[in-house]
């Protein structure tokens, strides 16, 4: 009887494990997002709570090597320029394992941040521990958080805008619209969007 029980437990655990892999993990809009302490390109650790005067954050999972991420680099810089002063700074995180993707090494991140004159932290998710909690699957992948008494609430998940190819041809600026709404104390109307990106290499 005992063996049956143990066997049953084993089967149940195996089943749950299998189920977990298949179900989409990570945050949904409305969830409280975790803070972190990750190494920035200046070798200092950065946490969301340390960023002064923030009303929220534009957390962007991005990287060096991905052509889609590259296509959005200038637009990410522009987002920080526009929204940092309104209380929504950009915090960029490279989720890739540099051992799997050489172009996303910490040294290369430092080079890129310098070349492109990043005005925001560019952090390495060492050990690839933070991105799975958020549920990021690709770069670029944006999470807009609003700072509240309960914690940092996820208000938007998805793409930066509707045209990776040509910034001039963009019709809908998803991230800007969302942050504009939050700044005005309004509800974000488009809370989730999807876009092609490079799968994260853990």
């Amino acid at each position, binding site marked *: 009887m005992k063996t049956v029980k143990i066997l049953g437990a084993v089967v149940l655990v195996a089943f749950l494990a299998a189920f977990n892999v298949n179900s*989409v993990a990570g945050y949904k809009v409305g969830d409280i997002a975790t803070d972190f302490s990750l190494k920035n390109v200046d070798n200092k650790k950065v946490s969301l709570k340390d960023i002064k005067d923030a009303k929220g954050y534009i957390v962007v999972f991005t990287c060096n090597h*991905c*052509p889609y991420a590259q*296509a959005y680099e200038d637009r990410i810089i522009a987002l920080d320029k526009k929204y940092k002063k309104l209380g929504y700074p950009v915090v960029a995180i490279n989720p890739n394992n540099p051992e799997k*993707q050489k172009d996303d090494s910490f040294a290369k991140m430092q080079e890129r941040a310098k070349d492109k004159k990043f005005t925001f932290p560019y952090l390495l998710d060492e050990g690839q521990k933070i991105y799975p909690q958020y549920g990021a*699957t*690709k770069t670029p992948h944006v999470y807009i958080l609003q700072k509240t008494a309960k914690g940092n609430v996820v208000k938007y998940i*998805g*793409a930066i805008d*509707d*045209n*990776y*190819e*040509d910034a001039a*041809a963009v*019709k809908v600026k*998803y991230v800007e619209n969302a942050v504009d709404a939050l700044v005005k104390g309004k509800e974000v109307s488009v809370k989730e*969007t*999807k*876009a*092609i*990106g*490079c*799968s*994260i*290499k853990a």
Partner: protein
Amino acid sequence: MNRVKIGVGIMLFLGVMLTSCNKKTETEAEKTSEPVTELQKNNAPTPLKVYTKDGVSVKAYDFDKLEYFLKQKNDTTYVVNFWATWCVPCVEELPHFEKLNVKYKQDKVKVMLVSLDMYKMVESRLLPFIKEKQLKSDVVYLRDPDQNTWLPKVDSTWSGALPATLIYNKDRRKFYEQQFTYEELEKEVSNFK
């Protein structure tokens, strides 16, 4: 029951109307484009553009046009792989799709490789890649930047990460946001017979 019949009747009528419209554009397309492959015969949509370089050519479609290839209703099982030349895991699994396409040719399995390369890379990277790797499967280029609109039409669960694969026939449809080994791919396809 009658209502259902009328409904079906209307749909058939609309279907005929739509196909006859398509046929017109198709004949126009045939005049200008490269020889049509097996998959693209009949009512195949007109490409936005046909890129050609060094004897290799690839047709470009927006999603509305591409959707035709994701909704075939015949006795073939289609394996549609979404990839890009810059996507390392995609390039790694590409030989498996090529192998599958050759091995199951007689068994009505057809592979289609949908490239999501950046449009600036079609001539500089995609076409040379097809030539260098001597890809035998059908390769088409999807140029449709409004991804939030079309991604969910491929599959509601697709987050947008590459590689991704859709396997379907007239009875079944399954989507995979993952990288395949050859064994896994062959096993999945065998479930469609």
